[in-house]
């Protein structure tokens, strides 16, 4: 089993080439000038315009109203990613705590109502969801951007599963010491869940940052655009002009993928743990 298998490495290297190749090309091409790309095509070598392209993309005021910058879109993406992840963790830990550690009458029916949300993704109810948001006056707000996405129960199931694996003796001991539900939650459950919270945070941040359909519907005011939401606008610029601004399009695409990719790479172990144990 110890010998090096050339054939296996060849297949893996081909896999790496297919998966990573396009990203390298996008990064390198973004550092060339638009006219240069138009003439010579994509590039796998760095050009000399890395700093000025990215400075321009981050600070240039673009869009139809001329208010939105790359920096602003990045901030909106961060708000969406972090807000979604934090909200998800808070909501689902509380709900899972109630489901696992309490005996109460409507537990079964409430559990089923939460369970059902897993079966229908947001995409199949977009139009009515949009109408509800207009009725509540929540379009073009951060609340409208984040809160409706929390209406799926993936996190609740994950924490429920984890809480059930916590030994019963802990609760017994805590009760002998006179700890009530709040004290047990803050003093025992939250510290025990730290790793799980980190893992879920990574998954949910990536999920929130990468949202596309919902932000597209919810935000018409450009100052609320996220980077991923702005992709469509990038393309419109791209197709429109004589010499398309390929370099700026690539730079924005790189910016849109950089934070989630970095987080996944840096916290790889937590990320894989969160993914394989939470199923979403």
């Amino acid at each position, binding site marked *: 089993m110890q010998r090096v298998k050339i054939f296996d490495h060849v297949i893996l290297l081909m896999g790496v080439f297919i998966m990573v190749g396009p990203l390298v090309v996008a990064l390198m091409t973004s550092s060339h000038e638009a006219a240069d790309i138009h003439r010579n095509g994509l590039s796998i070598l760095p050009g000399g315009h890395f700093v000025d392209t990215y400075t321009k993309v981050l600070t240039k005021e673009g869009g139809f109203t001329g208010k939105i910058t790359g920096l602003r879109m990045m901030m909106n993406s961060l708000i969406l990613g972090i807000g979604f992840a934090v909200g998800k963790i808070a909501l689902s830990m509380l709900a899972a705590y*109630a489901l696992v550690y309490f005996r109460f009458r409507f537990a079964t029916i409430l559990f089923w109502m939460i369970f059902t949300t897993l079966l229908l993704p947001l995409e199949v109810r977009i139009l009515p969801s949009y109408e509800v948001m207009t009725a509540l006056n929540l379009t073009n707000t951060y609340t409208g951007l984040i809160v409706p996405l929390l209406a799926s129960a993936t996190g609740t199931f994950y924490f429920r599963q984890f809480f059930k694996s916590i030994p019963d003796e802990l609760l017994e001991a805590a009760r002998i010491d006179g700890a009530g539900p709040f004290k047990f939650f803050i003093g025992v459950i939250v510290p025990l869940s730290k790793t799980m919270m980190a893992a879920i945070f990574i998954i949910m941040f990536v999920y929130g940052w990468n949202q596309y359909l919902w932000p597209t519907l919810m935000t018409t005011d450009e100052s609320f655009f996220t980077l991923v939401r702005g992709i469509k606008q990038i393309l419109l610029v791209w197709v429109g002009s004589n010499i398309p601004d390929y370099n700026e399009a690539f730079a924005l695409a790189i910016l849109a993928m950089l934070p989630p990719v970095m*987080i996944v790479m840096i916290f790889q172990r937590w990320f894989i743990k969160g993914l394989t144990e939470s*199923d979403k």
Partner: protein
Amino acid sequence: MTHAPSLSPTSPALPTAGGFFRRFRSTPSEPDFAKRVQFSSPYLPYLFLAPQMAIIFIFFYWPSVQAIQSSFYLEDPFGFGSTFVGMSNYTDVLKSTEYLGIARFTAVFTALVTFFSLAIGLLLAVKADGIIRGNATYKTLLIWVYAIAPPVAGLMGMMMFDQHIGPLVKFVGLFGWDMKVGLNYTDTAAAMIIVSVWKQIPYNFIFFLSGLQGIPVSVREAALMDCRSGFRRFWTVILPLLAPTAFFLLIINTTYALFDTFGIIDVMVKDKAANNPITLVYKVYMDGFRGNDLGGSSAQSVILMIIVFVLTIFQFRFIERRVHYT
């Protein structure tokens, strides 16, 4: 839901799919909901559940009920109320050849995306599991793409398949294929499938790899003694042990191809859906937001909901039985 007792959550071959199956299995039909000891309080559990329930009610149940309700009405185009039309939104949708064509494309698209992303993910996972040197490096490099948003993946696809600068267009040009993505139906479909598969490979790779690493060394060694052919060993020992993971991934990939590819499609067809392939979800969006056909779009939403329900139940009742868990 089914209750196959053979699936023990602690089974060593199930490090990944366990949570998923447990999630479905430990539905409330189990009376021992969780713990031997529990708190009892008349109001606290409701207080803790209140935020989640409130959000689910406002943003899940309310819109879902509305979708069902408005699928039976015809909205006046000028906003002067709506008329009850019974099932006619549904019959209109199901009789439309355009809709049936889109449904056919969606089925083909879903099948191809699911098959190829599972197959390539499995191949890479088996190879990465088999080698000792460089395992971690390959793993890191192969999972990057997971973090990329579907529309950004679509943008990368547009770049690779660009008419002027796309290297893939030039590549297939060598074989005499004049690829025109965005203009030619088949070419656009091919590009969409390739990008969708590319985006989903890392997910399958991660799950298959951690499934493979959960197979005990003793099982592998026993298999090695019994059978010299690596291929047969994989086919008769490893693959059956991976079946729960594969089954779980089958559901996830189907859902992915049906719904999560929206961003890829939206970027790649560039609003010109007329001659381009689109999926059912995209059609819901087009009719609802571009066509302002509230009733028709709602009827399509309800049809999709039914498809998702049927798929889930079908997969649990029929496929799960053929999967070996031990």
